[in-house]
């Protein structure tokens, strides 16, 4: 979680108005935190975290706090502690910690990321399916995928076998997903004379990176027939090679430097386009946004993505905390230009500085919290 955000220029009345909306949301929000009494909490109003080392004995006490002392940001520890409110950290008595993966997108401009959140979601799904479930062997029941409320996704893993891992061990998992130190040439055993090389390598059915590489190569050779060599425009050459790969025999191509040519495919294997933020995964004392709480910079819910609707999930449609209909209109005045966005299942904007608009609450409050507009009170 970045700590660079500093509260925008809401005036006291406006701020009170916004927090009242937050409070109403929290009065019946679905917030379930396993072992809540063992978690440390942090709250933020000026920065994302102004105060930490707080704890709650029960879900009701936590809800009451959110409704009455509503903050802009709410985080809880990945870790479970004997004494979550003790300071310094060493006195808390750590019992274990969820394994956290953080995928964040950075893009040009204040609104650049919102059109690209689909990409982060694709990576988050790949991270979950290929790495966390297939390779690490963790059941989906122990995983929640959460929209971060702004520019990415968090994955919380609560498998008891992994709760006791230390910082180094967690980093190793994040680096595995990021492919740090991955060299696909290590998959191969090359022997024999130069003109009749015997190349033994991964099979489609292999586990982890090896199997993914074999599958990706077969797909790529068949789909982009000429990218790797003109020889693959010949269907027989193609089939001979890909059928060989299925058995782990990579020698059945007449392209002499075939392994070198496949490098671009290997580079696509890790979660690299956005990358897992290693520093988050390895930090056991990290506070992470409470799932289903509101992100104070956007007014969007850090929503737990229902795994059944993962493909259709779109934060700007499905992670809204406030009203979207005609009966929840809020008038705002823009103090800067804002580009067009797809929001609440409709096209919104662009808007010009000085423009006054009546928009559904979820949209109005988004622009207010982004610091692009003021509520007309």
């Amino acid at each position: 979680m970045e700590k660079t955000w500093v509260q925008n220029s809401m005036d006291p009345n406006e701020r009170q108005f916004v927090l009242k909306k937050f409070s109403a949301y929290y009065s019946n929000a679905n917030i379930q935190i396993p072992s809540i009494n063992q978690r440390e909490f942090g709250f933020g109003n000026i920065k994302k975290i102004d105060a930490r080392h707080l704890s709650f004995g029960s879900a009701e006490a936590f809800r009451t706090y959110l409704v009455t002392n509503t903050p802009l940001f709410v985080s809880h520890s990945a870790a479970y502690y004997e004494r979550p409110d003790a300071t310094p950290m060493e006195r808390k008595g750590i019992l274990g910690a969820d394994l956290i993966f953080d995928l964040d997108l950075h893009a040009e401009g204040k609104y650049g990321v919102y059109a690209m959140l689909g990409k982060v979601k694709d990576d988050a799904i790949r991270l979950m399916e290929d790495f966390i479930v297939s390779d690490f062997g963790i059941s989906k029941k122990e995983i929640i995928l959460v929209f971060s409320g702004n520019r990415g996704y968090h994955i919380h893993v609560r498998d008891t076998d992994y709760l006791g891992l230390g910082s180094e061990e967690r980093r190793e998992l994040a680096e595995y997903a990021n492919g740090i130190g991955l060299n696909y040439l290590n998959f191969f055993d090359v022997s024999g004379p130069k003109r009749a090389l015997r190349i033994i390598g991964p099979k489609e059915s292999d586990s982890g990176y090896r199997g993914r590489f074999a599958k990706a190569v077969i797909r790529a050779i068949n789909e982009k027939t000429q990218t790797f060599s003109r020889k693959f425009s010949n269907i027989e050459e193609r089939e001979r090679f890909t059928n060989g790969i299925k058995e782990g025999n990579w020698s059945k191509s007449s392209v002499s430097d075939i392994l070198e040519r496949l490098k671009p495919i290997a580079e696509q294997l890790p979660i690299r386009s956005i990358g897992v933020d290693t520093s988050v995964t390895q930090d056991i004392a990290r506070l992470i946004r409470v799932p289903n709480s509101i992100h104070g910079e956007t007014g969007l819910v850090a929503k737990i993505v229902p795994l059944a609707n993962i493909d259709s999930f779109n934060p700007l449609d499905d992670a809204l905390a406030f009203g979207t209909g005609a009966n929840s209109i809020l008038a705002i005045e823009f103090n800067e230009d804002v580009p067009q966005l797809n929001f609440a299942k409709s096209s919104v904007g662009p808007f010009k500085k000085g423009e006054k608009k009546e928009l559904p609450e979820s949209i109005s409050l988004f622009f207010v919290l982004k610091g692009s507009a003021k509520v007309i009170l």
Partner: protein
Amino acid sequence: MDKGLARLKSALSGKWMKSTAVHESEKLAEVASYAVSRMILSYMRNRYLTNKFAVAEAKLAHSFFEKEGDGALGTISEELGISVKKENQSDRFVTIHGVNGILFVPLPAYLKFSPRSIDYKLVNRSVSNGFVSVNPHERRRLMEEAVRKKAGEIPQLRGGVPDSIKKAAENLKSDLPKIEPQSTVTFKEGDNPPCMEKLLESLKKHENLNHQSRWALAVYLTARGMSVEQIVSLYSNLPDFNEKITKYQVEHIKKRGYSVPSCATLLSYGICCADCRIGSPLNWKGKVWGAV
């Protein structure tokens, strides 16, 4: 008591005591000497000595493992927290090497006990459905690491310390190398690898460094023998310098005795900036001498 002391002395010299026990009573005495060693360590609370002891015990254990049969190894392995399977029950898994004797170690145990080397790095392993495949040799290596970790965890002594323990500790103290850092360490040009040089340069220019860079540099400088005061004074160049916090953190680094991050780690932090191929920043000198 004497055997316990001897066990520590040989650990200090980088060796481990070979077992000569034949009779049951001798074997018992050997087990007892392990316990005595740990009591002495608990009284002394010397990180250096404890680490030396842990490594020696791990090597000793490894020499036993090599002689043990499959059954006994399995039991010991289990006891150390490394339960292995001969076959992965998941139908998604297909053995990739086709070599006999491949074993499957649960991923969390593998992460805890695999040595920090590129060969054991997860990206270079076959990982499937929560298991990592290892060969018998690698399994023994994991077990050795587990012993090292266990032997290095020394509980606090409860109650009064017997005089015999105190005496043994006195005896050992004279054998300890003088590892207290000299009060000042100064570097000449070329003394440090490019990555560390770059961080030091940034400091001199009052540039901000991220947490990992600060940590890596402090661990490195500590290992090179710089005192806490010296490092804190260096860090006073930082734009957001806070003496109290810096001092606390550097002292913490010293107290915990962190090992200097490897080049691979520095690469993953984005600190590595040259292709020196030395494995660890601490090998820099060796590299220069080797080149000459």
